[in-house]
């Protein structure tokens, strides 16, 4: 539109900045388009200059190509549930004195209350300590190896504490050949992963080790084809799950697929009944399954030179860490944030711990908060209307590389879930990934007290951008 075309058209302004100018425009009868703008990179000149370097056409072209490769791997990944095994036998690098935890690396001293509670509980469960006090001393002694799940092809929900004799899912990405692991849902809210560690928690872990895990494992041995988890996930989204905070449909589909094989095992009817009752006691049974599905896909996209696609988002209750395809195993961290959302009756925000768990791998893949529009039943979690929930999923398009045609959202005309978070776009737009998650009590032993949404700290993305700029554009 030339200047003279402008003079002969209606003025249609966009107001980027001071709202008082928009007020004056409205007073004169114009209808300004409004912005909710934030400075790129949080306004930090060093970040903006790094972003500028990555935006140079010849650099941007290299990055775009690498990101397309990362995206195509995420979309092509076909995670299959192949079976269940005990961590010591399956998870790479697992030892009897290793405790895996969620999020980026962290020392015992810096762990939050719930994670410490889970660690000590696990040490008692493993028979490495006779009681919680002794477990605390052992944890501080240096004899225990603490390591992030993510560095062992694994993920763990909430505290993510995984020890040698726990049973884990074995999920193979049949397109790329990599395998990923995660432990089993403990279901009820007073559980190890939320830092609870009394005898009832240990008793449940024992039953899971002695009955639940073996039943599931034997069942899957009878299923030689494995279970196509991406297909099942896609169905669950069409049934109203977003596969992070709502897992009603996914759990039903998963146990439906497992049930015939469970029946065929040699366990007693009482034991089988216990398994079905346990699965039925909480919709969360399939939650870890979708996490490990996402992990198997995201690991395939890691390590692509020049790619700015995020392959890990994980929190340990103290730090929030991300990893990026083009920088491999390197963690970029910032402080874990408070989760905002409705809480169970009797609790207030002052009771809540900080954001924790590897479950943000679901958002990294494109489900969870990114697929909010698929789950109108839980919009109350984000404190808004169904229309706003639709908006959340669409907003995530602004920071992702593409959409996943294999996992779609019916209400958005079957838009594929937004996939391949691009560090550049996060920094440029100031839009942080939206994560749906649970709220754990800040003290160990109490468990889940609510659910809501949280965003990563921008610092993690800023550090990642600086490192990417150093590697790619200098």
């Amino acid at each position: 539109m030339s200047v003279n075309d402008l003079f002969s058209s209606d003025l249609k302004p966009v107001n980027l900045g001071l709202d008082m100018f928009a007020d004056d425009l409205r007073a004169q009868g114009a209808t300004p388009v409004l912005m909710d703008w934030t400075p790129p990179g949080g306004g930090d000149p060093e970040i903006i200059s790094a972003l500028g370097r990555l935006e140079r056409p010849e650099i941007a072209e290299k990055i775009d190509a690498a990101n397309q490769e990362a995206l195509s791997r995420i979309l092509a990944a076909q995670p299959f549930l192949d079976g269940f095994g005990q961590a010591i036998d399956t998870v790479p690098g697992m030892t009897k004195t290793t405790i895996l935890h969620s999020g980026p690396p962290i020392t015992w001293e810096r762990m939050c209350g719930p994670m410490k509670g889970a660690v000590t509980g696990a040490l008692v469960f493993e028979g490495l300590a006779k009681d919680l006090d002794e477990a605390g001393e052992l944890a501080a002694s240096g004899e225990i190896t603490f390591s992030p799940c993510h560095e062992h092809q694994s993920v763990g929900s909430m505290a993510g504490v995984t020890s040698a004799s726990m049973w884990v899912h074995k999920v193979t990405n049949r397109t790329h050949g990599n395998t990923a692991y995660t432990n089993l849902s403990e279901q009820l809210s007073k559980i190890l992963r939320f830092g609870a560690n009394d005898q009832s928690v240990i008793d449940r872990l024992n039953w899971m080790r002695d009955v639940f895990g073996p039943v599931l494992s034997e069942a899957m041995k009878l299923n030689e084809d494995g279970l196509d988890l991406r297909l099942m996930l896609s169905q669950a989204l069409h049934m109203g799950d977003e596969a992070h905070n709502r897992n009603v449909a996914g759990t039903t589909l998963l146990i439906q697929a497992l049930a015939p094989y469970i029946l065929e095992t040699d366990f007693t009817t009482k034991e089988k009944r216990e398994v079905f009752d346990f699965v039925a006691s909480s919709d969360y049974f399939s939650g870890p399954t979708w996490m490990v599905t996402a992990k198997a896909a995201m690991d395939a996209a890691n390590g692509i030179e020049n790619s700015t696609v995020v392959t890990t988002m994980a929190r340990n209750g103290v730090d929030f860490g991300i990893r990026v395809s083009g920088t491999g195993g390197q963690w970029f961290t910032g402080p874990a944030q408070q989760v905002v959302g409705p809480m169970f009756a009797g609790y207030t925000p002052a009771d809540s711990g900080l954001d924790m768990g590897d479950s943000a791998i679901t958002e990294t893949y494109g489900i969870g908060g990114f697929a909010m529009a698929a789950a109108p039943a839980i919009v109350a979690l984000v404190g808004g209307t169904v229309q706003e929930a639709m908006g959340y999923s669409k907003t995530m398009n602004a920071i992702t590389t593409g959409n996943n045609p294999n996992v779609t959202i019916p209400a958005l005309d079957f838009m594929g879930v937004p996939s391949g978070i691009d560090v550049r776009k996060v920094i440029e737009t100031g839009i942080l990934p939206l994560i749906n998650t649970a709220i754990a009590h800040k003290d160990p032993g109490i468990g889940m007290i609510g659910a809501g949404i949280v965003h990563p700290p921008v610092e993690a993305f800023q550090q990642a951008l600086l490192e990417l700029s150093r590697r790619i554009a200098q």
Partner: protein
Amino acid sequence: MTRHIDIRKNTYLDSVSLMSMSTKANALEGVSQAFIAMATPMNKEVLANLNITDPAIEAAKPSDLMIIVDAADDQLDNAISGVEDILARKNSGGADAAAVRYRTLDGAFEEAADTNLVIISVNGAFAAREARKALNAGKHVMIFSDNVSVEDEVELKTLAHEKGLLVMGPDCGTAIINGTGLAFANAVRRGSIGIVGASGTGSQEVSVRVHDFGGGVSQLIGTGGRDLSTEVGGISMIDGIRALDADPETKVILVVSKPPAEEVADKVLAVAGAASKPVIVTFLGSTRTESGYDNVKLVSGTKPAAAAAVIASGVDESTLDMHPLNLPLIAEVQAKLAPEQKYVRGLFCGGTLCDEAMFAALAKYDNVYSNIQKDPSYTMGATDASKEHTYLDMGDDDFTDGRPHPMIDPSLRLQRLVQEADDPEVGVIAMDFIVGFGSHEDPVGVTIPAIKEAKAKAEARGQHLEILGYVLGTDLDTPAVEDQIAQLEAAGVTIASSSTNLGLLAREFVAKGNN
């Protein structure tokens, strides 16, 4: 404190909605605690742990809804009705379409494709980046932000020129496009005079004078104060003149600028000379008198420039009220001032208004100090004490660092006004008051107490302190210019009728003491 317990049989709500409702209910005024939950064993246990027990709670089944509200006795009814509203979900309306806000310009353009101009007033460090995006999307741009580098300015204007788009700014305070004022602007009649201004308040001033003389404005294009520098080369000014030349609604083009670089002035005048319409040019403080082109008239001062444009647009010269200088008034004020009251202190919001008044003073006096003086030996900073004749542009960067422009926040100018009144050598304090879109809603009203204090200080030592005010605005502005003038007159302030007259009157009021 009263407890309200309501058990609703066979009323199911999902746990997520209930958590959300509980959270909202706890935020209600007067509520000390509220629970809305299904009567599951777990929820009943939570209540028991908090010592909330009741036979009705005990008897409730998991399919029943429990509503428990603790509130101050006199607020219980309100609290219960608030909880009812939450349960009825009365607050869940559809999103207000008008309230949609976009995070990125790309997002805005995608959804609102027919937008044609972007007004950018974000921090200058980010403005160029956004302007580039807007231009690349084919949108015209007004950059209100300052602190944009000259390199970015040249790049943006070159890009815009190649695309046939307009870049107004950076540091462009005013524009009127298709009759709509952008940023700081005055409500003026539409008409046939097209204005291109490289100075914000200078452009506002000529638009107001045009309106006052009975003329009207077709378009007012701002260019930003640096457009006529050697580096930028007048790219926006030249494109603006050409656009107005091609605009059928525009009959006369009026150009206003602070002194341009000489070679840029030549270039701009050549473009004006090639136009098919009369062009009136005022380069404030320039000594040029001849344009060299028949259709281009160089005029000194904003008021004469506006008058020339209005006459060229066809308004009968004899109908113009030229507001000549009131010579008896000058003599009257001179008589009131003591011999030692030799100096003018000008405290300005408008940069061009300060310039115009300062140039008027410089035509008569040498000892004129200012933060915008070009001569380094007469330059002073924001924190320096005033000296002899001092004209301060308080909207300039050294005064606005970290605070809003004085057109929005006059507090710094109020302090300075009272401070100047301490100097017994001061005869006149000259001030501008700018009303209209973007400006403070009552710039005069907020200054009156400081005016009274300043006058009282002088009076206490037996002096008359002359305060000279000029209100830039029109009868169509909010607040109307007449109301502002009436307030000033009631406080004993002498009124100048234009920026040009403000400078001349201030200079003449102290002329006796300087002879």
